[in-house]
Each structure stands twice: as structure tokens, then as C-alpha cells.
């Protein structure tokens, strides 16, 4: 990597001791940095969660008191949650949630697989027309989504895929591919390819070397890209609203279809309850996988 500051090639004992001293000094420097980080962390959490807090307060508030501006929970009720989950009026939030999770999982896995191979080619191989291809992939993110709907609708209706899962999965994959490919390419570029070369000289195939040497190091990037892909697919609304049937509609379409008891009524509290319900699985997923995002460089095989 091209770095502006020299890193000593050999680690002498004095050098190690110097680093140990610097670390000890940083640790012992009273509460300064730790507290400052802590305060900033709290500010960030408040900024991120404050509107979400308001969403939850509204979700627990009786519908007729929707515009009540008391900051703490008042007129508390579980009605909104039961309404959101009930299937009496034809809403199937539970099923929609499962659809979203299923579609998201498939999209993520496929986009990662396909994107990683493409990223490997772009980061590692030399061939003519590479800029053109990279440009084409990027250009796929430049067209307004709404203009794609009509031709896609006609295409999928003509081949009989209307309302089926593949109609929702394929476009979601394509929407997420440019970002996936570009992110993975930029990270794969930074990998220590000399190690891969060394492994290949030692007899590994390209794929083997990739799998054993590069993949573990690229794990944080891959998990990050996985989260990006999953949440992108989770938020997808444009295509699903037109091409999903009642059985296959994801959460975004289901919530958009929430209706009040009478025409013109906007069921805010129910929508907020539904929003809370669908966010929880995602938060749990993130909590499970968050350690993988920041796995950091594992020891062994990495030179400075």
C-alpha cells in the first residue's frame, strides 16, 4: 500500500518496547479519551434513536390521540400492535415479514456470490474492456427506478412470473449488484495479493488460494457488503408494489397497504406499530452479525 509514513521493515526490540510504552501512556492518560469517546457514542445513539423512540411512543398510543405531543408514553394501548398483526382485514404482516426475510436472504447470498466473482475479476485480472464493463455496471445505478417498472411489468407478466418470488428476487439482485461489485472490488484491491501468489506458487489453484488466503482477510468487507445488500433489498418498494401478489408481498408493500377504518383515514399509529414490529428482526440480525463487521485483521500473514 502506498503510505506516506515509514513503517520500519524489521521489528527490533527497541521498536516493540517503544510501542508498548506509547500504548501504556495512552491508557494511563486519565479518563480523557475514554470519556470523550463515551460521550460521543452517547450523542450518536441519541441522534439515531430519538425519532425511533417517537415512533415507539406513537405505536403505543391510542389512535384518537395520534397528535398528542406529550413526550413520554400516554394513553398507552396494545391495540395498534394487535391491529397491525391481525389478519381480519386482509393484512398479513407476519407473512409479509417472512417474505421480506426470505427474499432478503436469497438476494444477499446470490448478490454476494455473483458480486464476489465479478469483483475478483475486476480487482485482480487484466483484460481489455475492463473500464467499459465497470462503467456499464455503474451505469446500471443511474436510471430512475420508476421508469423501469412498466417494461419490467410487461416482461414478467408475459413470461407468467407475475406475483411469484423470482419476480421480486431478480430485480432486487440487479439493483444491489452495482454497489456490491464496486464495494467488493475496492476492498479486494487492498488485499495482500503477494500472499495469494505465494500460495499459488506453492501449488494452490486460484480458487483455493482465494478461499484460503484472501477470503478470511476480506471477511469484514464481505459481511459489510452482505448487510448493505440485505437492507437494500429490505427497503425495496418500487418493483414489489407492482409485481407482488398478496401472498408474496414484502413488508414495504404490506405496510403501504394499511388502511384505516374509513376512507381518508391515515392509520399512523398502526403504521408505526407495524414499523416497530418489522424493525426488530433486523436489529437482532445486526446484533448477531455486528462482530463480524469489525473483525479486524487477524493475526498471521499480514505485514505492515
Amino acid at each position, binding site marked *: 500500500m*502506498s503510505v*506516506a509514513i515509514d513503517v520500519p521493515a524489521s521489528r527490533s526490540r527497541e521498536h516493540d518496547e517503544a510501542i508498548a510504552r506509547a500504548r501504556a501512556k495512552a491508557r494511563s492518560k486519565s479518563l480523557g479519551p475514554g470519556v470523550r469517546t463515551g460521550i460521543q457514542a452517547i450523542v450518536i445513539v441519541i441522534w439515531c434513536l430519538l425519532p*425511533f423512540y417517537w*415512533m415507539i411512543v406513537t405505536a403505543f398510543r391510542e389512535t384518537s390521540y395520534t397528535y398528542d405531543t406529550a413526550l413520554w408514553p400516554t394513553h398507552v394501548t396494545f391495540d395498534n400492535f394487535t391491529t397491525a398483526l391481525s389478519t381480519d382485514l386482509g393484512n398479513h404482516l407476519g407473512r409479509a415479514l417472512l417474505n421480506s426475510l426470505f427474499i432478503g436472504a436469497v438476494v444477499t447470498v446470490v448478490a454476494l456470490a455473483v458480486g464476489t466473482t465479478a469483483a475478483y475479476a475486476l480487482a485482480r*485480472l487484466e483484460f481489455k474492456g475492463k473500464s467499459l464493463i465497470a462503467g456499464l455496471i*455503474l451505469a446500471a445505478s443511474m436510471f430512475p427506478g420508476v421508469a423501469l417498472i412498466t417494461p419490467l411489468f410487461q416482461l414478467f407478466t408475459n413470461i407468467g412470473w407475475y406475483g411469484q418470488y423470482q419476480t421480486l428476487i431478480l430485480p432486487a439482485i*440487479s439493483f444491489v449488484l452495482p454497489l456490491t461489485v464496486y464495494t467488493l472490488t475496492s476492498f479486494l484491491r487492498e488485499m495482500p495479493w503477494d500472499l495469494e501468489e505465494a500460495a499459488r506458487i506453492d501449488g494452490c489453484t486460484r480458487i483455493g488460494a482465494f478461499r484460503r488466503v484472501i477470503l478470511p482477510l476480506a471477511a469484514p468487507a464481505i459481511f*459489510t457488503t452482505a448487510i448493505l445488500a440485505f437492507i437494500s433489498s429490505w427497503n425495496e*418498494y418500487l418493483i414489489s408494489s407492482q409485481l407482488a401478489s398478496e401472498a408474496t408481498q414484502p413488508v414495504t408493500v404490506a405496510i403501504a397497504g394499511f388502511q384505516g377504518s374509513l376512507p381518508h383515514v391515515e392509520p399512523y399509529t398502526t403504521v408505526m406499530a407495524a414499523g416497530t414490529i418489522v424493525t426488530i428482526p433486523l436489529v437482532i440480525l445486526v446484533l448477531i452479525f455486528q462482530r463480524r463487521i469489525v473483525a479486524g485483521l487477524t493475526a498471521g500473514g499480514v505485514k505492515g
Partner: protein
Amino acid sequence: MSAVAQAPSGTTGPARRKGGLNEKHGQWAVWLIGPTLLALAIVIGYPVVSAVIQSFQSDAQHIDPTTGALVGGGFAGFENYLHWILQQCAAGGKTIACAPGTLGASFWTSIGNSLFFTVVTVVLETVIGFWMAIIMNRAFKGRALVRAAILVPWAIPTAVTAKLWYFIFASAGIVNAVIGAKILWTSDEWASRFAIVIADTWKTTPFMALLILAGLQLIPEEVYEAGKMDGAGAFQRFFRITLPLVRPALMVAVLFRTLDALRMYDLPAILTNCGGGRGDATTTLSCLVVDQVRQGYSSASALSTITFILIFVVAFIFVRFLGANVVQTQANQQKGILR
């Protein structure tokens, strides 16, 4: 995308050593990139080509006096494009400048709005996202919860977020109650623009933070310590070590965020009905496309193509001048050909 500094032909370093491997690169590439291109060709390529072809047709706009049916249509050349760019509307048999109330009249305003939203939201999200990533990168108790908390804004489905902010910014909503004013966040010219900026920043900063964090992960701790030992202060360490090393991830994040911001639709539509000010303070290009699709599909296709060209130009400037070049391989880098 000619920002790639191609190595002089036939002298790719490692390949030379391996003999015939370079010829096989092309073959490999076809199989590795093929699936991606296929998926994109079907889902995006086909509709785009179809839309461009449609943009050269005209919509059926004449009422047959006996049946009342709409007839007309057929080849129209560049008429649709001129309608948008030169604001040529037809009225009473003549061609006049588009009057307020037609979509054509808002064309240039919407370009300005789209660019405004893009610049402001991307700058804000980059700065705040960077800050969040740096904090997330540090080790402290409870950082798992911080990381989960940061993703919450982005994880809530867009439809719910937009409705939530509409509700927060309503004239009888919580923001006005807390600050004790009666600002019309969904209708005043600048208040509505900032309402959208705030909502979008809240929602999308996690995306930037996540990508930048992944980039920060790649910087080994020793580099910072060496820097500290060399006497570099915090600022210097940031600008000389962090920024250059995180640049690849940062550029991808900013590039894609820019492309998305230029196509912004949900927030202006739900928060302000694409209105505000005298009626088009928050109208973005995608707002116009959606409305135009209802009025005449061919004209909407022309507008989409114009939007596409605009976004392409922006992306081109980005890659060329800010060096967001992703396809330069390690080989070229190692040969000292930077950016």
C-alpha cells in the same frame, strides 16, 4: 471511465512471469463477470433500451370526435426531448413556453432541487458518517449496542420512515411542539427543503458509516502508532494516514450515495407532495418522472433518459476528477501508477 491509467500494453508485471496467464485473464473474466452482466442486462438493460426507444414515440393525445377514444401516437423524433429541455408545450395548436401547472415548467427547477439535495445530503452524510465510523472503530464497552443503534435508522423501511418524519414535521407535530414555533415544515420553501435534508441524513448516514468503518478496519494499528511516535498530532494523523487509506471505501460510498440522491423520490413525495414554496421547491427529477408516467408514457421515457444522462455526467466528473477509480488493479498500483 477513462480514468484508469492503463499499464502500457504487454507489460503487466506478474503476468509476464507466469507466461501465458494473461491471455487467460480474458477468458476467466467472461465467466466471472458474465452472471453479473446477465442479471443487469435483463433487469436494467432491457427496460432502459425499451424506454429509450419509446422516448422517440409520441403519446396518443388526440380525441377521436365520434368514439371519444384517444388516438394518435407514432414516431416523434426528438420532440419529447425538446419539450423538456426547451420547455415547449403545445396549447391551442401553437407551441408556447410551458406554463406553471404543467410538468415541463418545473424541469429546470427540479434539476436545481435534485442537485441541491444531492450536494447537501452527501456532504452532511459523509462528515457525520465519518465521525460515526471513527467512534465505532474504537474499543469501548457497549460498542455492540452502538453499532446496532446506528443501523436502526436505515433498517426501518423507507415507507415507514417517510411517514414518521411527515408526522414529526406536521404543523401540529412534535418538532413544532418542542421548539414552540409554528414553522410549516412541509410547505415553506426552505423549511421543506431542510425537512427533507434532515430526514434523509438521519436515514442514510448509517450507510456511509458502515462503508467507512469497513475501510477503517483495513488500517493496521501499527501505522497510527508509528505516526504518533513520529510526532504527528491528531489532525495530521487523520489527514495523512486515515484519509488516504480509507479513500477507496470512502469514494465508493460517496459515489453511490450521490447516484441515489440524484434519484431521490420517496421523501419529497411523502413529506411534501413534491411541493413546497410556490409549488415546486422540493420537486426532484424523479417526482417529475412519476407524475409524467401518469400523463404520457413516452414523454416520461424521454425525461428518464435525460435524468440518466445528467447522472452519468455527474458520475463521470466524479470518477475523472476525484479519482474514484475502482478498477485499477493492484498490479498497476504496485508499479507506482497512482490514482
